């Protein structure tokens, strides 16, 4: 993408005026403005002289002072201890308790990292044995964003796919999980099950019953549950609700609640915060052996999360509340974003469902639409001649003709013979309109 952008900036003639990047789940990269409160707190933490001025509301100053008092030397430039700035770890713990009910988790079970993927890599490091005759395996969904799988492979682990069911709104099906596990046993030593909820790229949000089924499966088959819940704040469908794996686990009671080992990941990069550049994420570990947690401490201490990322997490976990001076603006900004994304979801369905050869399962949550594209034989032939996957070919044509940049389904995995495209919903509504129009055009012209 960057290469194309460079070519464009150098003035090479293309039919389009500018590249419309609707590929990545990068809200701020797409032009969405950051939340004012986060940036004010961060600026004050970095340059404490601002605390003496009238430029910032009192709750911003209070939060900044609180955070700075727990940083070494009262400065954001310093290293932080594990699991991070104590106040941030506490706030995350309280956030989890508010979300799930029950007692706040011990801060010793929460590890802050430079983004959820770092935390995931560290946990994979604990689980995966990547050498010798029998390597560890992790069941991973198809489709799935590619970073986790790459991390797993870089440790020498095996990824064993289980297919989500497109016809049923991309839901996870237990027969398929069972099939995948049986296959896994032949090629590796399966140790964990990786679940993304809400999904990426498909926008499915798991029901409580589905989560219970997965937990039972994990207990029975002795699998560690790796649950990527970074889009938990992004749920749009009216009759759908996000419920965390941890909450369901606790409600199921013993033997599940005190045996099933679970790691749940969250991040400041997604949702309304969208602070992907600041690098803040965390993992909460449930039912892990205390000795393993000690070792996890050592692993996490190698790469502490940057202080700005931790501060973003602090706002995620403990945002302004009703009555705080910053609340009205915060509420307005988050509402605006919610409204915009919901409108995008509606528009996506309207446009895509009206196009021949394109169909899209309902997007219940997450940041992406993942429609299926039925390409005519002519297109398949052309793609074959060019030595590329048919959906890559579609994306390339779209880019060349209209400047809209999306990603092909082959990068995430899909059933043989099916083709998909992924694009993000975290965009200004006008951008979505333009993109929609382009889809229509390219379809009419070529496919």
């Amino acid at each position, binding site marked *: 993408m960057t290469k194309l952008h460079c070519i464009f900036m150098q003035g090479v003639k293309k039919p389009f005026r500018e590249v419309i990047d609707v590929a990545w789940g990068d809200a*701020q990269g797409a032009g969405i403005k950051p939340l004012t409160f986060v940036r004010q707190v*961060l600026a004050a933490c970095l340059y404490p002289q601002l605390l003496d001025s009238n430029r910032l509301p009192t709750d911003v100053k209070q939060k900044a002072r609180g955070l700075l008092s727990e940083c070494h030397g009262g400065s954001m*430039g310093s290293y932080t201890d594990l699991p991070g700035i104590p106040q941030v770890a506490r706030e995350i713990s309280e956030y989890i308790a508010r979300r799930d009910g029950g007692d706040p988790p011990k801060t010793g079970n929460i590890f802050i990292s430079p983004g959820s993927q770092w935390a995931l890599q560290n946990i994979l490091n604990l689980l995966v044995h990547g050498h010798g005759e029998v390597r560890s395996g992790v069941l991973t969904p198809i489709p799935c964003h590619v970073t986790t799988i790459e991390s797993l492979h870089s440790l020498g682990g095996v990824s064993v796919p289980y297919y989500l069911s497109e016809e049923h709104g991309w839901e996870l099906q237990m027969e398929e999980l069972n099939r995948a596990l049986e296959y896994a046993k032949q090629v590796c030593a399966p140790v964990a099950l990786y679940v993304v909820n809400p999904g990426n790229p498909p926008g499915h949000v798991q029901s409580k019953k589905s989560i219970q089924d997965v937990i039972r499966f994990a207990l029975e088959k002795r699998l560690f549950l790796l649950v990527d819940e970074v889009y938990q704040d992004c749920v749009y469908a009216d009759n759908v609700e996000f419920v965390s794996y941890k909450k369901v686990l606790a409600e199921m009671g013993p033997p599940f609640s005190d045996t099933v080992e679970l790691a749940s990941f969250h991040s400041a990069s997604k949702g309304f915060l969208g602070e992907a550049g600041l690098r803040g994420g965390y993992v909460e570990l449930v039912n892990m052996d205390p000795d393993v947690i000690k070792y996890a401490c050592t692993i996490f201490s190698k790469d502490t999360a940057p202080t700005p990322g931790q501060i973003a997490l602090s706002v995620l976990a403990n945002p302004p509340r009703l009555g705080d001076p910053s609340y009205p603006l915060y509420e307005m900004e988050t509402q605006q974003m919610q409204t915009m994304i919901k409108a995008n979801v509606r528009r996506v369905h309207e446009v895509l469902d009206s196009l021949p050869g394109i169909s899209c399962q309902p997007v219940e949550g997450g940041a992406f639409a993942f429609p299926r594209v039925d390409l005519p034989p002519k297109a398949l032939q052309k793609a074959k001649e060019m030595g590329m996957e048919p959906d890559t070919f579609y994306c390339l044509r779209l880019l060349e003709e209209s400047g809209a940049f999306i990603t092909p389904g082959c990068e995430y995995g899909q059933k043989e013979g099916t083709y998909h495209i992924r694009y993000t919903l975290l965009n200004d509504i006008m951008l979505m309109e333009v993109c929609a129009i382009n889809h229509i055009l390219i379809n009419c012209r070529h496919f």
Partner: protein
Amino acid sequence: FNSIKSENTKRQVQLTFSSTDVHIAKYKNSIYDVQVLSACIYPELLKNQTFPVDVRQRAQTLLDACGERSVGSYTDSSGLNHVRQSVAEFITRRDGVPCSASNVFISSGSQRVMVKLIASGEGDVPTGVLTPVPCRHTLPMMLDFTGVTLEPYMLDKDRGWAVDMNELHRAVNTARGRCQPKAIFISNPGNPTGHVQGRKSIQDVIRFAAAERLLLLVDEVYQEYVFEDAAEFISYKKILFEMGPMYSDTFEMASFHSISSLGECGLRAGYMELVNIEPGVTHFVDTMLCTDISTPVTGQLAIDVMINPPKPGDSSYHTYTKEKEHVKDTLKWNCQKACEVLNNLPGVSCQPVMGGIYLYPCVTLPEETMKQAKVEAGPLYCEQLMQGQAVLIGPGCTRGLPAGTHHFRNSWIKENIVVCII
């Protein structure tokens, strides 16, 4: 060591000498740096005269370099183009040798990536890395983590912890018996020794690494902290290119730098320059960095500020220069004074340092203490110092050093050291 720290955090730690973290020592960031960064974070601050003109201009330039003018956006995994370009220009200026931005990688974990790279071979024979003793305390753990064998080479204590070429030869030959040595790690200025290598020493190391076909991994993080009358920092790259095409065209190396030395450890960013690495491998490095997603943007911008400080004529120039000189002078004074004091203590001897931010004194512990320690006497000494005097220092790396000697790592960046406590 970590348990000593955690058990004692409730006590007021009066003096912490163990860490690289200059903020613990109440070191003030340069005003220019934090103003630029906070304006990038909260661009509203650019709207009036809160900050001087050069700060505002700099922040604008940096924001333009970020996607959609926000530090909250992902960047390419190898870093913002603007920052890579700035680093390339900095290196070119410093060494007088051209550097291409495509060989510069911004990351908060580039050393780990390089070690993983050399470890990722096939076969049963483990990969080895020649590592100095003493070395940075996090290095053995990082090597262990990536499944690489650490093959130590002793630095020469009696010559101020200089590199001993005989020792290097011995180490590589010993290594061949138990692993396949593929790289040599070196720190210049030394961490924790404070030794700054001279021209000849650097040439010797380059020749050695070339002859033994070892990738050179050189950590130059403390290049800003050299005490001029004692020594001069010259980069390995500069020397390499002075040695002519026989070496400069083929010798493979990676050099590392970071903003931790600027005092911004919390922002987590550094860069790596690759020299003479094949494009296919460079591409692979790029890919490996992708699993880290991207380096924190605030850290990337801090790198830019570090290598491109205010110039004469800029509004912030005088203040910035004064602040930097003050830090260097304090450090130099502290190190020299502390070294004197330590050398006057019974059972303690300390090599003078030429650079870096640490002292690495040797303490000969009495027999009873050694017997009393159930594990290592070094950490026991640190623990007692912590409990008795509320002073925290770091136990030294004891691997391979003569029995009965113990070293401790002390960082001397704090102002007005109350030396009598020791």
